[in-house]
């Protein structure tokens, strides 16, 4: 299937000389939730700003639905909705007026029924006649989503959608995003909340210092890069790891009463059975055990650290 967005060798150097993007290649699949992870200043916003037409690229090509974003800007932009990172709103307009304005701006005829549906879906209907300046921060964030959805886009960019948003609203936002994906909208989400990507994304891209470090399915990424650890609570303290168990590269806890075994989740044999057998043979008993898998956050931190 043709990717809905194809980015080739995209670079951006600002007038100040700062290189925000370095030859980025990326494909976004139709109907997926793609999370672009990266620390502040990594190039996330620059990348989506170029796709949306707000920033000019220095070199490279971006195709949306097979069409060049510059040559076919009308067709391309009418497919895209953008929710910016900052809460930039028309303070003096009503919720209804500013949402209707967005629909017209993107070339769609007035459709009060659609605007009503969008505002209801985002729990803004009761506030439709209120001035934007009277809304809370969370409501303003939802209003930005309503404006972006007013022209029924096929692609939605969410630039740090839950930055500064409380936990409850963040979960509401996630539900909204999932519902949008279920309705067929492709969603590109930039975030530095790993939890957000882990919760929602189908695929994850990690960007740092303008370079795309990897793009993987979230599950595959965690399988591939995720470490798993078996922690054994020992019956009796050990002074050191016996030489007979050296091949397992065990870590002995500070107080000598835990042993931690790190193993490869993709290996055919994890070595756990053999380890337990040999521990039994060496007379080392345990009273409890548990396993831990590294989170996307651990993976992300590792990757970004390597670029420093």
């Amino acid at each position, binding site marked *: 299937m043709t990717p809905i967005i194809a980015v080739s060798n995209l670079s951006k150097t600002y007038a100040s000389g700062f290189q925000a993007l370095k030859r980025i290649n990326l494909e976004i699949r139709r109907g997926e939730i793609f999370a672009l992870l990266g620390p502040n200043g990594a190039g996330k916003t620059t990348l989506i700003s170029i796709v949306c037409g707000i920033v000019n690229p220095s070199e490279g090509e971006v195709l949306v639905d097979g069409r060049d974003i510059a040559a076919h800007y009308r067709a391309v*932009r009418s497919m895209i909705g953008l929710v910016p990172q900052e809460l930039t709103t028309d303070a003096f307009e009503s919720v209804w007026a500013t949402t209707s*304005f967005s629909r017209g701006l993107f070339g769609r005829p007035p459709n009060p029924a659609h605007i009503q549906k969008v505002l209801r879906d985002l729990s803004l209907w009761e506030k439709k006649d209120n001035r934007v300046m009277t809304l809370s921060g969370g409501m303003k964030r939802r209003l930005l989503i309503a404006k972006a959805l007013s022209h029924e886009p096929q692609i939605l960019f969410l630039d740090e959608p839950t930055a500064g948003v409380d936990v409850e609203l963040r979960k509401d936002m996630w539900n909204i995003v999932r519902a949008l994906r279920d309705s067929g909208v492709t969603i590109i989400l930039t975030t530095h909340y790993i939890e957000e990507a882990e919760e929602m994304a189908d695929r994850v891209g990690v960007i740092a210092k303008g370079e795309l470090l990897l793009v993987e399915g979230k599950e595959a990424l965690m399988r591939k890069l995720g470490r798993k650890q078996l922690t054994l609570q020992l019956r009796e303290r050990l002074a050191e790891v016996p030489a007979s168990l050296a091949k397992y590269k065990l870590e002995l806890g500070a107080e000598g009463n835990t042993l931690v075994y790190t193993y490869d989740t993709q290996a055919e044999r994890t070595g756990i059975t053999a380890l337990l057998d040999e521990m039994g043979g060496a007379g080392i008993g345990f009273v409890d055990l548990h396993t831990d898998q590294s989170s996307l956050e651990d993976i992300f931190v590792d990757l970004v650290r390597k670029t420093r």
Partner: protein
Amino acid sequence: MNLHAVRAIYHFEMARAWRTLMQSIVSPVLSTSLYFIVFGAAIGTRITEIEGVSYGAFIVPGLVMLSLLTQSISNASFGIYFPRFTGTIYELLSAPVSPLEIVLGYVGAAATKSVILGLIILATAGLFVPLRIEHPVWMIVFLVLTAFAFSLFGFIIGIWADGFEKLQVIPLLLITPLTFLGGTFYSVNMLPPFWQAVSMFNPVVYLVSGFRWSFYELADVNVGLSVAATFGFLGLCLAAVWWIFRTGYRLKT
């Protein structure tokens, strides 16, 4: 053409005018009425008429032009500067709209507001002095062309400005002096020869003169020159706007 976008921008800008009725309409009308009292009633008792037209009636075209220029610039510059200031410009830049459609929406709304204001001032003037319009079609042509040209100029200022102070600099330091020295309250022919020659370098002279001609057939310069000056200024502004969108000046990085 994305007519829905043009309509959306136009209505959005017009709605702002109604929301700020005091600032958009009432305030300029009040200022004009004060001009009538000060210049018409006070000075008019000393200068009874100019070339057969009562002084009060003579200054009407100049007063309309004064408001038209300042309000066109103010409306259009604020209209495009405010989204840049608040950050909502992202929506305009990411929308499927061409530069022509953006200009039609913003400049069209600013010019409409100025023309409405000009007509209201004319109606207000009618309460103070007897008005005569010899060439109503030309009067409308001058009114609309000047409103559009100076709204374009205001649009350029709104793109250029990077603070509210800069938004005010050109209207206050350039346009207002040029308007006052452009024959708004007098005929250029009343000046000594040296200052008459200097006035010919003031573009506002041509606008006021042409506009006054459409009322009383009185002109400081040939009406053809006035039409040419209006089109010339319009052309310059269009070229500047074309360059802004081609380069993305102050809009895109």
